[in-house]
């Protein structure tokens, strides 16, 4: 914890920022605990960033290391951009959670353990020969040992719950204790519990009692030396109306907002897949906002239904992750060939194949840009923060409809689940981009193009006089009819490419997000690495390095000035959560000697990892 100012032990110590990790069995409710702590923290005016980390198994065998679920929250009295490199506080609900997470805890960090779960059986399941609470192996940390299970059972006893339900309240007891320690108010969680268990008030009351009991324990129990309560003052954010938002929520809201700005109904075709499913869930609850949601029989049907909907005049949307995008590629090619608007959201996860379903990665970039049969260009966008998912989803709708093209929006598992305070936009201030379906039969053929955008006109079934046929076979440039003519095919491939390339005239120029527009080193990122790169560049600049940061959100086509910008720096470093993809595009498109920094661990970059690379590169240069 960065110490803000020391006070005596009877009052709260002021600290500037803190990183807490809650860890337990996947059935221990750690995600709920973490998100409740985060919501309260946001309401109290801190800036924050979260990192949920959970196993692919829904309920892995209790007590095992592979069933450990974690939720990290970083909050501060200042602007922050990442969930924090290493926790200052680790809450371990059982031996397995301790085993998995201890290596990340900062030296001297606070370790809160539930001794009630440190049974011989649980120790053995976690792979401990000896009890680490007793063998001195934790001497490098400030250890707070509490039998949370016992205290929880006592606190909920009056409510007559069964043992299983009673024990389950221990996450609320723990939350209460942490809320005491960091001066958080409990009311919003109590209110949330009353809503969640509206049909079972006894369970709500018992959980609230556990929450309060944990808090009281903090107030009254004698704490070991060096453990006390803290205060993290409010951060100063820009004036406005805020909420916490995850990337998947923001994506869903961005899509419906895009639909409204385009004046179009949306039809979502989707198939459940981690970590994209919550977009399907969110949109399924937004039927009142102009979206029809269809859970298809598979990924292919999902995108095909979206294409059918676009053909019929709505905007087709499909949401997926890597394996699903692989299945959709042939259909996306059909949408490219028939020049229909389509938005594909790919919430990337670890690959190849099934890979790491619940872990984050950025390894679909080359696939999104190039991965289809034939010369098959489309627009690729990438969101850089949870809130940016909203902006880029709106942008995806705008470009898809204006250019009659599929647009792939890349987000990732980290953005999908991570939350940050977000200044809620006023959609009435956004510029509408109304779509006009063609009505005029004079001179019509389906592949007539707008001379400016090269987009074909969008004529939809139901319109008298515009009856026409389209398909995946090559079309004659001048009539839209099937054509196998060699010169015509050459021309059509070129015009489809020119149309997508022309989008570069309609997107913002690349900006330097931090630092000067020339210097020793430009760190170029894309997607969810924004926070870590930004913080690392800030650190390096404070140390006097001439380093800048540019973050790309338009992956294909790229901003027109990007090549020129890259050449103003002596070195270009590209940190990516993959084995080197953006770096490959930059090298091939702009002939710059960009080098990669690759982390392929299913986890976001730590700030320190990027900062060390910057320092190393510039020190050896």
């Amino acid at each position, binding site marked *: 914890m960065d110490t803000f100012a020391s006070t005596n032990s009877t009052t709260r110590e002021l600290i500037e920022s803190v990183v807490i990790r809650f860890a337990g069995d996947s059935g221990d409710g750690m995600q709920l605990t973490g998100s409740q702590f985060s919501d309260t923290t946001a309401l109290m005016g801190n800036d924050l960033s979260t990192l949920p980390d959970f196993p692919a198994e829904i309920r892995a065998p209790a007590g095992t290391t592979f069933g450990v679920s974690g939720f990290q929250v970083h909050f501060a009295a200042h602007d922050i951009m990442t969930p924090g490199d290493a926790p200052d506080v680790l809450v371990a609900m059982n031996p397995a959670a301790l085993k998995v997470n201890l290596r990340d805890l900062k030296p001297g960090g606070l370790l809160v353990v539930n001794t009630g779960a440190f049974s011989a059986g649980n120790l053995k399941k976690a792979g401990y020969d000896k009890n680490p609470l007793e063998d001195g192996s934790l001497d490098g940390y400030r250890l707070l040992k509490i039998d949370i299970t016992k205290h929880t059972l006592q606190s909920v006893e009056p409510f007559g719950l069964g043992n299983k339900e009673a024990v389950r309240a221990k996450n609320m007891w723990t939350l209460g204790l942490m809320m005491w320690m960091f001066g958080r108010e409990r009311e919003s969680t109590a209110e949330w519990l009353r809503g969640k268990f509206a049909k079972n008030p006894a369970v709500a009351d018992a959980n609230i009692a556990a929450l309060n009991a944990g808090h009281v324990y903090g107030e009254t129990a004698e704490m070991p030396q060096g453990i006390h309560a803290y205060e993290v003052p409010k951060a100063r954010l820009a004036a406005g109306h805020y909420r916490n938002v995850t990337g998947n929520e923001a994506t869903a809201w961005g899509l419906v907002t895009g639909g409204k700005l385009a004046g179009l109904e949306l039809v979502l075709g989707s198939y459940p897949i981690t970590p994209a499913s919550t977009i399907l869930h969110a949109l399924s609850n937004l039927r009142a906002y102009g979206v029809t949601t269809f859970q298809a029989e598979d990924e292919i049907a999902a995108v095909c239904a979206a294409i059918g909907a676009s*053909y019929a005049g709505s905007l087709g949307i499909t949401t997926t992750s890597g394996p699903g995008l692989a299945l959709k590629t042939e259909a996306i090619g059909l949408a490219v060939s028939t020049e229909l608007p389509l938005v594909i959201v790919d919430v990337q996860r670890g690959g190849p194949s099934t890979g790491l379903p619940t872990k984050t990665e950025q390894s679909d970039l080359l696939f999104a840009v190039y991965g289809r049969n034939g010369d098959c260009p489309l627009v690729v966008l990438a969101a850089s923060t949870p809130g940016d998912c909203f902006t880029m989803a709106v942008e995806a709708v705008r470009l898809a409809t204006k250019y009659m093209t599929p647009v792939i929006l890349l987000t990732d598992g980290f953005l999908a689940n991570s939350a940050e305070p977000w200044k809620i936009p006023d959609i009435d201030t956004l510029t509408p981009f109304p779509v006009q379906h063609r009505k005029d039969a004079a001179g019509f053929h389906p592949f007539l193009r707008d001379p400016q955008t090269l987009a074909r006109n969008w004529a939809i079934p139901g319109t008298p006089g515009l009856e026409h046929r389209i398909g995946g076979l090559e079309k004659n440039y001048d009539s839209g009819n099937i054509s196998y003519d060699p010169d015509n095919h050459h021309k059509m491939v070129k015009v489809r490419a020119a149309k997508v390339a022309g989008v570069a005239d309609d997107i913002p120029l690349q900006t330097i997000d931090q630092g000067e527009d020339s210097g020793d080193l430009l760190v170029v990122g894309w997607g969810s690495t924004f926070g870590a790169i930004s913080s690392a560049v800030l650190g390096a600049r404070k140390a006097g390095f001439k380093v800048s940061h540019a973050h790309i959100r338009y992956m294909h086509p790229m901003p027109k000035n990007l090549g020129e910008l890259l050449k103003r720096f002596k070195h270009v470093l590209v940190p990516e959560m993959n084995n080197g993809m953006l770096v490959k595009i930059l090298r091939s498109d702009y002939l710059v000697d960009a080098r990669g920094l690759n982390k392929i661990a299913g986890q976001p970059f730590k700030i320190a990892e990027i900062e060390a690379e910057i320092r190393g590169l510039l020190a050896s240069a």
Partner: protein
Amino acid sequence: MTPLDPPNPPLTRKDFTSDQEVRWCPGCGDYAILAAVQRMLPEIGVRRENTVFVSGIGCSSRFPYYMNTYGFHTIHGRAPAIATGVKLANPQLDVWMVTGDGDGLSIGGNHLMHVLRRNLNLQIILFNNRIYGLTKGQYSPTSLLGKRSPSTPMGSVDNPVVPAAFALGCGARFVARGVDTDAKNLIAVLKRAHEFQGTGFVEVFQNCPVFNDGAFDHFTAKDVSGQQQLHLEHGKPMRFGDDKGLRLRPGSLDIEVVTVGEGGVSEADLLVHDETNRAQAFLLASLEPPAFPVAVGVLFRSAEPGVSFEIGMHEQNRQARARGLGDINALMRKGHTWKVDPDPAGGEQAG
């Protein structure tokens, strides 16, 4: 959905014929089916602009190019999913899906299953020629056991699927059969399929003169069709040939062929076709020559068409929007939100 008024003046077959040159092989059964459809549409009074033909890939799937309506020639096997999207976007459109035995039952079998069980209000015409034509003659999922083809020179060891039985098994609520060369009866079942408020599935036995010529001759050739086809009519006894009929074998769930007037069998002993009986439809779908005639006409029409998928979805949309389209600004401000006031000192940071 309220049906659109028929066009005035009425349209003709020519109005439904596009300007594109038809490119099927000479003698292909597809020509006859195309002609039947082009004759049938003016008779049912549909509008060209409201009619959409959606197809997959294969010889049959070229069909939309030849219709002067809206048309979408999509990708292999996926026509049901594309058609589903079309209907979800605009339930008012009159959608016909054209597919084949390979497109519909092999690569697209999954989608065909789901469009049938969802019971979208559209028509599916499955051209069954028991062969892959466009890829030059490989055996298909409806090819008979032992079929020799470029990919099965020693004969196929795949058991074929029976399209009508597949459709019934998927929960289809309207299942019918026609023969390419029998325009009169084909037009009649297509009209019945269109009339049905749900998925109307029509299998057409279609001859491929190049790669599987005569595959259905044993029951479609002029000299045998009378003896080998059972033309189903709702409420009528199941008679075929001069004096043959079908009855339930006493004490079993099997069907047997009997001769009326022999062994004391009278017409009253024959099964009477009940279109609304799914179990009977299964029995009829599985009848195969030479022991049995091939059942053609409407095998099954559910007495409970139910709510088609797109209508159910739009009814939910209507309910969700009963008080108008939602306010996105209000939506995003629901739940835990907070306001940050401008810093009076003016030292505000970027958010």
